[in-house]
């Protein structure tokens, strides 16, 4: 009986469902590898799962663990952005665009205006928040579906940011100027964290900051009046309104916070100097979309997202190590997009699990009754 109750726990069910998604995703990925080239498939799939463990020395392993973490921080922030909006019943597909304006703002403030890192970070948050709030405003005032307006904003922001950052790009390439050489004041402080990762200069306060924010989001959602109101608005807009909650204000606020998180995500990546923005990119960067994956894989829980973000980044980075003479690095993109696809089935899995449990319960009850008759 006790085991039964445990299985009915919603958190555990989410976790089981996520593990299922991962396993099925990896399995299909493995089958794809087998089809491409049967001999190296097992090695390739283990390489993807191993990621930096393919390096023989601990020094190198720590360094590349650092690199994986550097990219996990922004992914986690995007995941938080998506899940926060989701709690209020909104689908923030615009995390990608809010991430883009965040990147544009912080890079321009750093390279063009030569501002210090905290100002750039704040700027990115504000820019993302404004864009998010705009989507929320259009929804409340004009009934524009947030998914559609966000998709439009994703592309508008991409083109705007490309134009803006063209002012601070290298003369011979489409990439923005290197932060380390041209705006060292804008680099996020390392606080000596890099030393733990074989002097990885890209490991900064971004990583602990992202974890702190995810805990803060959990507290905000679970322990505050605002969080309660947002969730109530998400569950039933009309009931929330009837109970005296300002549903319009809540929707705009939710989108603003979600946007701010996505904007911050960009700052946490670009202000480490790990990547430069290419002003000639013709498609919206995938980080925001991967955030959707991480959010759903993490069971829409802030703490779960920490693990799912790390996992997705881990296998994405692992893809870079597969034997390039046999496979391509995009195999890991393939696997992670499969996993998101499977996340769409989580609800069904939960329903099926509960139905199975109900049946088992009924059978047991029926047996008991029969036993009683005798």
């Amino acid at each position: 009986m006790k085991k039964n109750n445990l299985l009915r726990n919603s958190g555990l069910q989410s976790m089981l469902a996520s593990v299922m998604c991962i396993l099925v995703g990896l399995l299909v990925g493995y089958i794809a590898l087998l089809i491409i080239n049967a001999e190296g498939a097992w090695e390739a799939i283990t390489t993807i799962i191993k990621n930096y463990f393919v390096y023989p020395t601990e020094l190198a392993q720590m360094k590349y663990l650092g690199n994986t973490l550097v990219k996990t921080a922004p992914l986690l922030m995007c995941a938080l952005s998506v899940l926060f909006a989701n709690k209020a019943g909104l689908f923030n597909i615009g995390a990608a665009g809010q991430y883009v304006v965040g990147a544009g703002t912080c890079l321009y403030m750093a390279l063009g205006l030569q501002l210090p890192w905290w100002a750039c970070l704040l700027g990115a948050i504000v820019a993302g928040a404004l864009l998010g709030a705009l989507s929320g405003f259009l929804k409340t005032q004009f009934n524009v579906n947030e998914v559609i307006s966000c998709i439009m904003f994703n592309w508008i922001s991409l083109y705007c940011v490309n134009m803006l950052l063209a002012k601070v790009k290298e003369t011979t390439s489409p990439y923005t100027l290197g932060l380390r050489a041209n705006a060292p004041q804008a680099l996020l402080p390392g606080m000596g964290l890099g030393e733990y990762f074989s002097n990885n200069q890209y490991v900064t306060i971004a990583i602990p900051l992202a974890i702190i924010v995810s805990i803060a989001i959990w507290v905000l959602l679970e322990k505050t009046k605002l969080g309660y109101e947002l969730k109530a608005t998400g569950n039933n807009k009309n009931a929330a309104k009837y109970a005296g909650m300002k549903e319009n204000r809540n929707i705009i606020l939710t989108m603003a916070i979600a946007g701010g998180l996505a904007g911050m995500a960009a700052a946490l990546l670009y202000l480490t100097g790990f990547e430069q923005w290419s002003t000639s990119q013709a498609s919206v960067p995938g980080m925001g979309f991967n955030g959707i994956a991480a959010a759903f894989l993490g069971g829409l829980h802030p703490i779960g997202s920490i693990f799912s973000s790390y996992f997705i980044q881990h296998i994405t980075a692992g893809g870079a190590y597969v034997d390039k003479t046999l496979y391509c690095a995009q195999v890991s993109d393939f696997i992670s997009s499969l996993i998101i696809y499977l996340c769409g089935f989580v609800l069904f899995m939960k329903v099926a699990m509960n139905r199975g449990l109900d049946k088992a319960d009924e059978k047991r009850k029926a047996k008991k009754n029969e036993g009683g008759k005798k």
Partner: protein
Amino acid sequence: MALLIQYTLIFASVLMLVALGGCFSEHSGIINIGLEGIMVIGAMGGALMMRYLPEGTSAPVMIVMVCLAAVLAGAVYSMLLAVAAINFNADQTIIGTAMNMLGTALATVVVKALNMAADPNNVSSTIEYVNQKKAFYFNIGSLELSWFMVIAVVLLIVSHVVLYKTRFGLRLCACGEHPQAADSVGINVYKMRYAGVLISGILGGLGGIVYITSGVSEWKFENGVAGFGFLALAVMIFGQWKPMNIALAAILFGLMRALSNVYVAFDFLAGLNIPGTVYNMLPYIISLVVLIFTSKKSRAPKAEGIPYDKGSR
């Protein structure tokens, strides 16, 4: 000028085909955000067919085979959405988003694997079709037109007739407006929704192959289709889910895309000194503005995005 008309027409054909696809899917009640992914897969199907057809294939055979390959690839791929959304009540937005990512990743993996199998030193995700492409084009005066434009116009008329004049079309719309009511008079909502998604796969796949054969003669699949699927969504909304309006919206948005490619050739436009990026951005801005003015009394199918549950009322 000829170049501008040419580009406008070809981009308009792409947008129209894909937007019509989205229109069918949404009228059946399924939101198809995954059009971008469907386009990529359709483009891949068509491009592979062009590559593997023997040299010297006559033009009509080439056109038919390539179209069939693209349509089939798009249709099969769209089943990912249909199964998830119709049988498993999955969230259509997540599935669509996943399909967009999956489309590019899958196409890249497949094309790279095939390229590597053919030549171990070729690790690119590019397919070339310089000669094969010629089959699709014919000239009227100085205008170089594509057969795809003809196909697009035919399909537009067919779509309009099917959607408004046939039993099937009206039933399809009923399933997107009020599925319970449709079911109560004996329409199989699940079948209708499958049909809607399947048609969107067919048209989306076709749009994909039209797009990658417009202007260029090779395609790098790592780039996906650069947002054309999303632009088609904008066309569909601007066209308010009606085929004829979609056609007009497609021409307008196609013109803007074309302008961003060739505006330098016009003295007065080049003189305005507007960067090409602005023309790329305009369609999205226009659709947002349109949305702001029309969303209060939106023509969007009422039940779209909601999984059909027989028990609810």
